[in-house]
């Protein structure tokens, strides 16, 4: 088990490992909602975190694994997700072994821009940034690319 799970500030450490396929997003969303309910997050806050996680993992499947020209990068390694509560925060960490990307370089398109531009690019990055309180991305850690989302419990 992850060393973090033993930390006294950390509650209810759940880990989930799923194949890199859209059909597994549902069970991931259910796990997120379960963690949020346990942490006492409001229904709306929980739904926002649920959506940020879903959009982030859909991006991993589509872009990090899906767009690779390097044949050694395949979806077999799946997506590893840590879900836990730390003090007044719900934290979701997602790891993938795909090609990753430069997170800061990809500005998010906001919904108005999205409408004006005729929806040629998605809202994923906007939702990931706006629906949570903290975001951190690290490319190529020993455990893969890591996206960490944090939502405060009010």
């Amino acid at each position, binding site marked *: 088990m992850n060393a973090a799970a033993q930390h006294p500030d950390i509650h209810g450490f759940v880990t989930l490992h799923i194949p890199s396929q859209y059909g597994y997003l549902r069970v991931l969303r259910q796990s997120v909602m379960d963690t949020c309910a346990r942490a006492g997050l409001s229904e709306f806050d929980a739904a926002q975190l649920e959506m940020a996680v*879903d*959009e982030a993992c*859909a991006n991993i499947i589509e872009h990090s694994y899906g767009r690779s020209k390097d044949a050694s990068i395949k979806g077999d390694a799946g997506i590893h997700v840590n879900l836990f509560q730390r003090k007044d925060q719900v934290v979701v960490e997602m790891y993938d072994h795909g090609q990753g990307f430069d997170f800061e370089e990809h500005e998010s398109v906001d919904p108005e821009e999205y*409408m004006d531009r005729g929806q040629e690019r998605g*809202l994923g990055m906007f939702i990931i940034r706006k629906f949570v309180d903290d975001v951190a991305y690290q490319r190529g850690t020993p455990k893969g690319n890591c996206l960490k989302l944090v939502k405060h419990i009010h």
Partner: protein
Amino acid sequence: MRECTIKREEREQMDIVRLDGALDSYSFPRLESVLTELRENQRHRVVLDCKGLDYISSAALGALIGFARRAREQQGDMKLVKLSPKIYNIVELLGFHKILEIHSSVDEAVARFEAG
């Protein structure tokens, strides 16, 4: 464990489309094919019953908006009804409640279509 189901009821003047389950990246192709079919058959007036909808991705919302826009060019529309508070909150945060017409019941949306 509900799979997403999309049921279409064709009425004389419009279509009622009922969603059940989650409209996510997995079920997205199914949504797209229903919308394409409606467009190809010149069915531009659609009431989308979201009573059973428990999740919707941004891509699915985008597809609904795209459909509504093109339908309006043909004097049609796509009106959403019976959104759960959870999903309405997401739609609102994205500002899409200003673009999509939202009603609380199928009858209300039907009446709006009938009023022209």
